[in-house]
């Protein structure tokens, strides 16, 4: 059992550090501010969630971390090194699984390794050993169209994991799944995370999901997004799904709901 303490005192070096990040888009000739001075950080091996109303700019924030967009103001530092490029430290799992329909599951999960120019056979061997952890054993040669929704998301997560990056950005990965599959996937994600201990930055608009999974939670305001609330989730780990009805859990949930509705 590991109990994680507050990292407000910066016990861990942040692998993601965003300081005063602001971004606006020009829509129909008008400046539309999306992010308003957002500051967040994710420590090494930490699980941090970002909750916010839909359309509040969560995905824009991820695009900035990935290097797909540049912030208008503010600082983005990855792995403590301002010169480090996102492609070397960040692995991104979008909301859609984006598995390539023309590749088998095995060849899909090694995609990032292939792009990096690694030996394909070596990557395949490594992937085969992990298939059962990701619940995909026996489906190595299947095509994505033959998989269920949950399996597709697991394959997408495996692809993200196998990229061997320190930071995983997961953008509402379970958003499209039914409630039961979703609950299973959350427990399973914690197991996977526990094994690999990579930093996970997780976007969701499901409050319970965020509390259940995370060490810390940031709550964003509606657009333009600011951090409305920043909470440590000091629930003991490993967590079982029953804990969503515990008084501590409900107290946190109430606090987050208030933050979401009062802004």
């Amino acid at each position, binding site marked *: 059992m590991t109990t994680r303490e507050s990292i407000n005192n910066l016990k861990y070096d942040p692998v993601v550090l965003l300081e005063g990040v602001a971004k606006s888009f020009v829509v129909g000739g008008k400046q539309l501010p999306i992010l308003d001075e957002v500051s967040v950080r994710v420590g090494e091996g930490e699980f941090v969630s970002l909750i916010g109303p839909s359309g509040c700019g969560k995905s824009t924030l991820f695009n900035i971390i*990935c*290097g*797909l967009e540049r912030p208008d103001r503010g600082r983005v530092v990855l792995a403590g090194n301002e010169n480090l*490029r*996102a*492609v*070397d430290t*960040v*692995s*991104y799992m*979008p909301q*859609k699984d*984006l598995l*390539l*329909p*023309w*590749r088998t599951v095995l060849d899909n999960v090694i*995609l*990032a390794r*292939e*792009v*990096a120019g690694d030996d394909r056979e070596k990557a395949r061997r490594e992937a085969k050993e992990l298939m059962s952890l990701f619940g995909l054993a026996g489906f190595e040669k299947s*095509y994505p*169209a*033959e998989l269920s929704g949950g399996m597709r998301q697991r394959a997408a997560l495996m692809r993200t994991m196998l*990229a061997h990056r320190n930071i995983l950005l997961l953008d509402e990965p379970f958003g499209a799944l039914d409630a039961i599959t979703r609950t299973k996937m959350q427990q399973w994600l914690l197991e996977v995370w526990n094994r690999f201990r990579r930093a996970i930055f997780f976007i969701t608009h499901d409050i319970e999901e965020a509390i259940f999974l995370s060490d810390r939670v940031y709550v964003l305001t509606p657009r333009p997004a600011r951090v409305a609330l920043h909470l440590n989730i000091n629930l003991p780990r490993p967590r079982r799904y029953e804990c969503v009805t515990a008084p501590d859990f409900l107290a946190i949930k109430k606090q987050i709901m208030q933050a979401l509705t009062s802004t």
Partner: protein
Amino acid sequence: MIFRLINRIPVTALGIMAVLLVLWEAGVHITGMPVWFLPPPSRVFTALVEMLPQLLDHSRYTLLAALTGLTAAVLVALVLAVVMAMSPRIRQGVYPLLVFSQTIPIITIAPLLIIWFGFGIMPKVVVVTLVCFFPVAVSMAEGMQAADADMVKLLQVMGASRWQTIKLILIPAALPSFFAGLKIAGTYAMMGAVIGEWLGASSGLGVFMTRASHAYQADSVFAAIMIISLISLLLFALIELISRLTIPWYYNERRK
């Protein structure tokens, strides 16, 4: 596989064709149309049987020109599509030229091809290539443009180069569209070769047709037309087969 093929034989289409042939046969007999003007299907069929060795011999040349030209067209089209995918600026420069090239009627530049390449197989191959590359190039280029933008973004975050993105995402994503274009090109290929032969050649179905029409042997002309259709149909089936073997994932997905 065999059963699937049998199931897919278009019974209705064959039925309609049989009815049309019967009407044609009856029409010719009732109106007493001269055979040199419009031969009945029965006469065409006899001509086909009689001339078969000769027709097959000529077909070899035409088919060779068609296949060579089609292959060249595919290579040219693929190179063009990939080059256009490398950057939007190249695309903006090349695409209008491609469209413009199609406004030139091939038949009008054919005499030039004879001047440049003589009476051998080369001018026929060039005609086929000119006719066939456009549908393939356009379908490939459009297919690459239509690739999932989020997949491209994903590769970008993985640090992929433009060429890696083309190789891993754009080309595979465009293959279904590519094969659709190739089927169109496949049906043009025989026609292109025959037109090339009309303009001057010593052998080939086009030559056979020219000679037959000069001798008012309409039945032989029809027989040649039947051979051309048959070969075009086989080409189409061959492309369909290659397509099924190359992109099985696409057919599986479509079935669902």
